[in-house]
């Protein structure tokens, strides 16, 4: 007889599972965490390599000569920006036209749901200016984008200057097979969102923008430039986009290949690569780089202007120039040459970048971990959940007992009801938290209201019990736990597929909760642990941890203010760009956690 169809063997397996449930859970969880830590260990990672045949190696001759002129243009831009007190639209239009581009502008405006205190804006009005360099001999079917943001103050002037310098150089070449769009966007992400929506004729976020007069074909790749100094010591690559989406790894490979060819220091997450992977400090350096990427990806916000392109299946990355205290500095001509080389290679593309990975983690710029290697982490942790729910199922006696039909009826109906009520009430609480339209207009008021509703949910069990008929039954909480555990498994599985980092961080904290919560554990202690492991506190700890990783540790008060601003940014991201992290946590993760809270206070 087979292993599972033989009743004797099955009973033996079941008893084994029931007996060993606790060790299995612990082992699975530890295995998942250990696998994750092992991902940063260099022998377990792969070196990056170019997958796209059309891009080949870095064989182009870069001849961009005009770095100094680009800086002069940047200074002119900054002077005009100060004069106008915003974006110098007329000057930009005139300069781009002088370089032979077809120039168009786009106006946009948006009222935020509540004032954004980080960037100090509430009613946003702006203009985007973009110029299209038409390919001399090609049909206008494909395009590449180079963008630089227009930020207030002294930032990013050199970026706009370099953009205009490159535009002039590119205009003199005959080998362009795609149109190149040079975009200067105002109010960074909001302007970029308006431009992208106008370009693709979609309106997902309710912004008000004027339609685009000129278009260039389907965009194959985009680069966003942030450069605030005349000389740089290193270039930083930012990959994480909206909802944790990443561009194709080939774009990062291209950047790295050119950095090596031209001889510029390149970093990712602001951390320079180290060669000593076998030492403890070297390994912890890779772990820190990887954890930074995980944190940034889990937050679901775009970390550069490129982040919004990814939604339209346009591979995009942001290149930031960093000027720190190193001896060897590279000038603007070198950066111009690097960008020229990258654009010449992107010009050779025949189809969108698709040969390399879309889901990966990078412990350093030259090594990566693909989805095939990091998925087992989630698998192990969810295996734990499967073990758990099997256990719960088996610990619940089957409805067909020999005690008679009346008994079972009595037992099953409170089962269904007892499960439904907490579920519905939890979700309603979640919906309250996720409500967008607030009558108040202060950021702090919004955020504190959200937290207040969150905390009010903690009082839920006492209220649900009044509505319940079959309170305090053994059967009831087991069924509820089964449902909650299944719900958590499905939720975490789906989240991990789309945004692995978010799924992993939630799994790290919520799965132990699911494992040990029963009404029989000591109440005060487990209530405390449950609150510590709730999504909100996870967020709080993540904020502190993130600041530590970036080597800018904060005090508790600053950390708390940062935590509040993170929540408000999450709500704003959702309403401005359609980020899904906040609704996910508020509507799905939090009710799930509330179910476990209910189980704890079942009696």
């Amino acid at each position: 007889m087979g292993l599972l169809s033989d009743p004797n063997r099955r009973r033996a397996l079941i008893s084994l599972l029931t007996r060993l449930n606790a060790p299995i859970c612990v082992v699975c969880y530890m295995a998942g965490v250990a696998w994750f830590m092992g991902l940063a260990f260099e022998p377990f990672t792969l070196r990056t390599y170019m997958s796209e045949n059309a891009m080949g190696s870095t064989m182009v001759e870069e001849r961009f000569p005009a770095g100094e002129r680009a800086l002069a243009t940047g200074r002119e831009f900054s002077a005009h920006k100060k004069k106008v007190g915003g974006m110098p639209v007329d000057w930009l239009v005139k300069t781009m036209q002088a370089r032979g581009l077809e120039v168009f502008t786009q106006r946009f405006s948006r009222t935020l749901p509540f004032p954004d205190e980080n960037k100090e804006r509430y009613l946003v009005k702006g203009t985007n200016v973009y110029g299209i360099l038409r390919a001399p001999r090609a049909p206008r079917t494909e395009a590449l984008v180079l963008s630089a943001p227009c930020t207030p103050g002294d930032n990013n002037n050199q970026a706009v200057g370099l953009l205009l310098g490159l535009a002039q150089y590119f205009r003199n070449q005959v080998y362009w097979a795609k149109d190149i769009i040079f975009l200067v966007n105002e109010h960074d992400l909001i302007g970029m969102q308006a431009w992208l929506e106008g370009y693709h004729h979609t309106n997902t976020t309710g912004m008000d923008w004027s339609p685009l007069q000129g278009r260039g074909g389907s965009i194959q790749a985009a680069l966003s430039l942030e450069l605030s100094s005349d000389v740089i010591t290193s270039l930083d690559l930012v990959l994480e986009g909206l909802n944790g989406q990443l561009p194709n790894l080939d774009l990062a490979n291209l950047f790295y290949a050119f950095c090596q060819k031209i001889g510029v220091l390149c970093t990712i997450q602001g951390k320079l690569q180290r060669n000593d992977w076998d030492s403890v400090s070297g390994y912890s350096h890779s772990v820190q780089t990887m954890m930074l990427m995980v944190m940034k990806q889990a937050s679901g916000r775009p970390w550069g202007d490129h982040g919004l392109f990814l939604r339209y299946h346009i591979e995009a990355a942001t290149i930031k120039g960093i000027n720190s205290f190193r001896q060897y500095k590279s000038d603007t001509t070198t950066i111009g040459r690097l960008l020229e080389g990258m654009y010449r290679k992107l010009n050779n593309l025949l189809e969108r970048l698709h040969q390399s990975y879309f889901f990966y983690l990078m412990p350093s710029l030259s090594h990566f971990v693909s989805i095939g290697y990091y998925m087992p982490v989630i698998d192990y942790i969810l295996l734990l959940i499967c073990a758990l729910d099997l256990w719960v199922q088996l610990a619940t006696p089957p409805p067909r007992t020999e005690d008679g039909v009346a008994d079972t009826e009595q037992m099953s109906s409170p089962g269904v009801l007892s499960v439904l009520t907490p579920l519905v009430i939890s979700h309603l609480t979640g919906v309250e938290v996720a409500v967008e339209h607030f009558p108040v207009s202060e950021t702090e008021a919004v955020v504190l209201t959200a937290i207040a509703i969150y905390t009010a949910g903690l009082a839920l069990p006492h209220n649900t019990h009044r509505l319940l008929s079959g309170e305090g039954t053994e059967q009831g909480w087991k069924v509820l736990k089964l449902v909650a555990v299944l719900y958590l498994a499905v939720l975490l599985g789906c989240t991990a597929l789309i945004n692995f980092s978010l799924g992993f961080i939630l799994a790290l904290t919520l799965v132990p909760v699911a494992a040990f919560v029963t009404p029989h554990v000591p109440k005060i202690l487990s209530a405390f642990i449950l609150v510590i492991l709730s999504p909100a506190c996870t967020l709080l700890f993540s904020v502190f941890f993130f600041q530590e990783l970036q080597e800018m540790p904060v005090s508790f008060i600053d950390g708390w203010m940062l935590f509040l601003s993170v929540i408000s940014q999450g709500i704003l991201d959702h309403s401005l760009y359609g980020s899904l992290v906040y609704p996910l946590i508020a509507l799905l993760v939090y009710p799930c956690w509330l179910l476990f809270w209910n189980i704890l206070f079942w009696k």
Partner: protein
Amino acid sequence: MKILTFFSLFSTFLSANSINVEENAGQFFSSGHTNNWAVLVCTSRFWFNYRHVANTLSVYRSVKRLGIPDSHIVLMLADDMACNHRNPKPATVFSHKNMELNVYGDDVEVDYRGYEVTVENFLRVLTGRLPPSTPRSKRLLSDDRSNILIYLTGHGGNGFLKFQDSEEISNVELADAFEQMWQKRRYNELLFIIDTCQGASMYERFYSPNLMALASSQVGEDSLSHQPDLAIGVHLMDRYTFYLLEFLEDIHPASKANMKDLFKVCPKSQCVSTPGHRTDLFLRDPGSALITDFFGSVRKVEITMETINLTDLIKEAEQKNIHTTANLQFPPLHLSSFLPYLTPYPQKPKQKDWHPPDGFILGLWTLILLVFFKTYGIKHLKHIF
């Protein structure tokens, strides 16, 4: 006196010359071909396959320089590199870096271009099964006295060659096409050169006579590209064809270089892959086949004032042939025997793989069984008998 010696010298010289010419007349027909054709195919498209087009165009250039006219060349290019949007020097295709040699020129005649280069069209050109509306420039109008050069380049693998990213031609198809050509007597001798990865697999299946094949790499090896040009941004040539081009640049229409020199082109130190060749189906000795027999269109012209009796000389030549080609039993070479359908050409025996003799395997099994039963006892034997 002086005039007499001069006259005697002159007469001896003339007679020697005429004997020379008479001997040479026998050799006029020794190679057997009267016209030359070339079919040059590039099967890859896209800008990063620039080198395949440059390969084909450089062989085209050599073949034209050595005398084959455009009317006898079928040139098939799968993509237009000269006018590609990404070409920084439009209307040129370079084969050497620093733009030394433009193989595109202004007198290139492409017969099959772009999407017309398909496996079907290639096979139709070879076998001659083209629709009646096909113009002459797209036809291979060869006869049984034609020597054909076929050059293929592109991306290939073990047993196939890729055409344009959408289809493949297999080595079996190619061998069958050549057999069709043989049955219809569309060639006298055929030289097949292929420059792709694992190119030797393409000639493994040939079985028709009078074929000689060269490939740039063996099975399991990749053919590598030669040099990139940084201004253009692509590799310009493949190694094998680059060194082949250099070798051909030294050949002029009167040169006597033979096929054995061609086999030495691009040794492993230069090519990284191991070029291969196949001559077992070729009935002449490769050392007696000149390069210009395939790559050029050489008209043999010797001016003589004498009348030459051809039938006698053929008999003399046949005597010589029987003595020198000791192992082969050829029927006597009469002029009438050049008519193809009267006597079939004998073929060299095929090489079979070695199998152990049949009884050996049976004996081995019996031995194994006996040993088995000896060790485990005789009583198990009764289960068999």
